[in-house]
């Protein structure tokens, strides 16, 4: 009985894909690469559909936090229990990467990154996101809502905030000298000509390291944007290729994959940023621990 249901669903889904493969070109122009302005607010800042989505996510996160921490008790239950589980799990996970000292200082940032991206990615999968809106002059729909992470402004702002904080933490934990020596100083003990040679080599390596550090926010920005935008675009295209009545069917299997992508991308962003910090603050807190 179960197998029959699965096979029937599979055949129905595959039959929906027939017109997709049969059509010569993808239907419609798909999801635009940039967020669309919906209206202008004070002071002349256009409010985009992705911004609206981000506000909704901010509101949801705020409501969740308030309901979880309004009446806190030592014996947790309900929302408080769930919130504590999330926070404690993230703390333990980050503690393994950053160490007990750094996680105390930076947990708020990495946990915020993870939760913010996850909530936005999941909200982007809700029905109506990208499909409820108005038609523009070209006859294409402009959604009132768009995934928060499918806007390069958002991913770039997160990446640059991280970059600023990374620089601050790197300098405060290592000192300016330690920070520069971490980048340029030779790793290992050398003598004589080898020492001079290695100093030159490591100065060159240091410049490459600086380029690598500067490229990190770019990579973070485009990785997250590309994955989320790509997912939404894929579903948009698939929905455009079949009659409207069954438009949901081709996109349905991808919804499950997008659920996974929503979580994985949040995790990847948090992990990468945490690892970048760990690399520069490897010995942070060790002195305190020795004392």
């Amino acid at each position, binding site marked *: 009985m179960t197998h029959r249901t699965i096979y029937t669903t599979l055949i129905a889904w595959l039959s929906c894909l027939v017109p997709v493969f049969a059509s010569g070109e993808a239907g419609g122009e798909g999801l635009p690469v940039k967020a669309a302005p919906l209206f202008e607010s004070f002071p002349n800042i256009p409010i985009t559909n992705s911004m609206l989505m981000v*506000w909704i996510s901010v509101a949801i996160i705020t409501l969740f936090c308030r309901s979880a921490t309004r009446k806190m008790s030592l014996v947790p239950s309900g929302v408080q229990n769930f919130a504590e589980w999330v926070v404690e799990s993230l703390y333990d996970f980050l503690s393994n990467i950053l160490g007990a000292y750094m996680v105390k200082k930076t947990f708020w940032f990495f946990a915020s990154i993870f939760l913010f991206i996850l909530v936005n990615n999941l909200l982007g999968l809700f029905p109506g996101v990208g499909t409820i809106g108005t038609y523009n002059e070209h006859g294409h729909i402009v959604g009132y809502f768009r995934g928060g992470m499918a806007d390069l402004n958002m991913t770039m702002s997160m990446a640059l905030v991280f970059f600023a904080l990374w620089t601050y933490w790197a300098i405060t934990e290592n000192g300016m000298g330690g920070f520069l020596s971490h980048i340029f100083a030779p790793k290992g003990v050398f003598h004589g000509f080898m020492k001079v040679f290695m100093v030159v080599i490591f100065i060159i390596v240091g410049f490459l390291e600086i380029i690598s550090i500067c490229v990190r926010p770019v990579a973070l920005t485009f990785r997250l944007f590309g994955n989320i935008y790509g997912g939404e675009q894929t579903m948009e295209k698939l929905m455009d290729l079949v009659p409207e009545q069954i438009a949901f069917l081709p996109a349905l299997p991808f919804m499950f994959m997008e659920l996974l992508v929503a979580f994985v991308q949040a995790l990847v962003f948090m992990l990468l940023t945490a690892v970048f910090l760990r690399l520069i603050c490897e010995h942070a807190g060790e002195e305190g621990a020795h004392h």
Partner: protein
Amino acid sequence: MFTILASSAESGNAVSELFGQFGVNWKFFIAQSINFVLVMFVLWKFAFGPIQKMLEERRERIASGEDKLKLIEKQLAESEATTAAAIAKASEDAARMINEAKLGAAAFTEQKAQEAIAQAQQILAKAEIAAKADRDRLSTELKREFGRLVASTASQVTGKVLTADDQKRINEDALAKVEA
């Protein structure tokens, strides 16, 4: 990142073109940055702060509970040891008291038995004396009566009045024969 992008392009036009293509706009960028900072503040103020405080408080309470448990276990062990010692001492005292009581009771019983024996002996001696006195008295009375009967019988048989010496001699003969 902007610097990198700017340096990688021949002019600012390339960056502008790239940003324009992806809809990057300073106003949007600042607005989204504000949103992100707002989220971090909300989470820090209303979620991570109170929850971590609560988790820390709970950890401290558990640690304190563990310490108290260890103390209670230690006190319990000490109390058990004290109780065992007290029970042992009480048992020892009780055994000693029982032993003393047994010894006391035996001595008392012996004393009372001796007293009873002495009293019984006294009573027996008195009874013997009384019995001997009674026997002597009865014997004397019997002798006297027997003598009188013998004298009376002899007098009646012989038909003469017996003298005191006769009576005495007849009595003595009769008594000697009876006693033999």
